[in-house]
């Protein structure tokens, strides 16, 4: 099944990655709106959103049933469901597929939780490396500030409380996010992330993102065909 990796597909795969609070979801939303408005074939998908798997994930998180291994596997199940039923068929059909978070989210978070890195990479071995992975780089304290000021209701797993880093949820979140950032930075080169400075204004970032996008992808090929 890994043979797909080498196969040239008519579609293009674009992912955004970054810490909570880095603004990546806003940026990919704006990119999506722009591409839709221009009439391109485009599809958007989010981490942890498969209808089939979501119930189990929700239950696991709520009851705090998840271990590092099952946390990782349940997200991989969600990813595989979306990948095989939506992302891959749409790439074959010549779509621009936009992903809010991709396997690198798992590589970063699950490694912090103690999962073996080689095991994680093999787990996602069936997934294509995106044509562009935008990484929204932000100093840790800025990202933390954005989250901790605006959204004080942190969730258990989101704050890495399962790691026992601190009994204080905000403190646990700080330590956890710091470690996740280290993992991302270490991966930036390995996976050829396109690093964007996320401290700038939303508009300035979006302009740069669109410029890079246009340079790297031949958009003319993605105009909607008129079907009678």
């Amino acid at each position, binding site marked *: *099944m*890994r043979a797909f990796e080498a196969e040239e597909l008519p579609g293009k795969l674009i992912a955004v990655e970054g810490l909570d609070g880095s603004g990546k979801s806003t940026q990919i939303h704006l990119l999506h709106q722009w591409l839709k408005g221009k009439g391109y074939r485009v599809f958007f998908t989010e981490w942890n959103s498969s209808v*089939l*798997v979501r*119930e*189990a994930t929700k*239950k*696991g998180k709520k009851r705090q*049933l*998840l*271990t*590092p*291994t*099952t946390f990782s*596997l*349940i997200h*991989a*199940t969600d990813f*595989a*469901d979306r990948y*095989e*039923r939506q992302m891959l068929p749409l790439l074959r059909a010549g779509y621009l597929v936009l992903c809010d978070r991709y396997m690198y989210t798992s590589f970063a978070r699950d490694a912090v*939780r*103690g*999962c*073996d890195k*080689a*095991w994680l990479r*093999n*787990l996602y*071995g*069936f997934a294509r490396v995106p044509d562009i992975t935008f990484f929204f780089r932000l100093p840790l304290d800025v990202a933390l500030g954005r989250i901790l000021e605006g959204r004080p209701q942190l969730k258990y797993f989101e704050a890495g409380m399962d790691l026992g880093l601190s009994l204080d949820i905000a403190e646990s979140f700080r330590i956890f996010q710091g470690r996740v950032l280290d993992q991302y930075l270490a991966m930036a080169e390995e996976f050829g992330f396109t690093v964007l400075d996320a401290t700038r204004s939303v508009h300035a970032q979006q302009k740069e993102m669109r410029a890079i996008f246009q340079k790297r992808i031949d958009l003319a090929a993605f105009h909607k065909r008129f079907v009678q």
Partner: protein
Amino acid sequence: MSPKRFYGISPAGIDVAKLSGQLIVIEGPDSSGRSTHIDLLAQWLEEQGYAVAQVGLKRSTLVGAELERAKEGNVLSPRTLSLFYATDFYDQFENRIVPALRAGFVVLADRYIYTLMARDIVRGAEPGWVASVYSMALVPDAVFYLVVSLNTLVERTFQSHLELGYWESGMDCGLSRDWFQSFVRYQKKIRNEFLKMQKLYGFQAVNANRAIPAVDRDLKVRIQQVLQRTE
């Protein structure tokens, strides 16, 4: 006490040196008599003073119910189904098998990673990928593989259900439109995978074409040896 090891890497947070119980796996197709024999073994072990824990597939609190529902709808891709099963396996592994072994129980597993791997491989998964997914599983103290001829299998399946199940017949694999043909071909494919794994993982084959008491005696003799060896 038996020294334990994992097939590959150890899962985060599990100290293998503290696992003092024994893990005994019974593998074999549906209608090979697995659950009957496990019940008999559990009773016998408890009579001898061993604490017993029984585990199986698709029984996890985390995803057991969702997995059952997803299978009814038959809408999951093979890889999603295989990862769902892996989640179910590790949930039970970390939350039931490992704690029971730590407490010194004899764990009787009604199937283990081998069935899961064989099913995935028959459905086109790369053997290397599957082996890596399950590489954090503990190597059991013994694996007994109940071998039943195809004729016996068909006969027993009809005796107990009067019909062939969708998944046990591999109807999702497109082997044949004929249900019976598909069952035969699918079971042969699964068996071939098991034969390959038998050498690789050192299963003990048990002839389960025989009457229940004969197979039961056979299993007890062999398990007695395992217990003597590992205590």
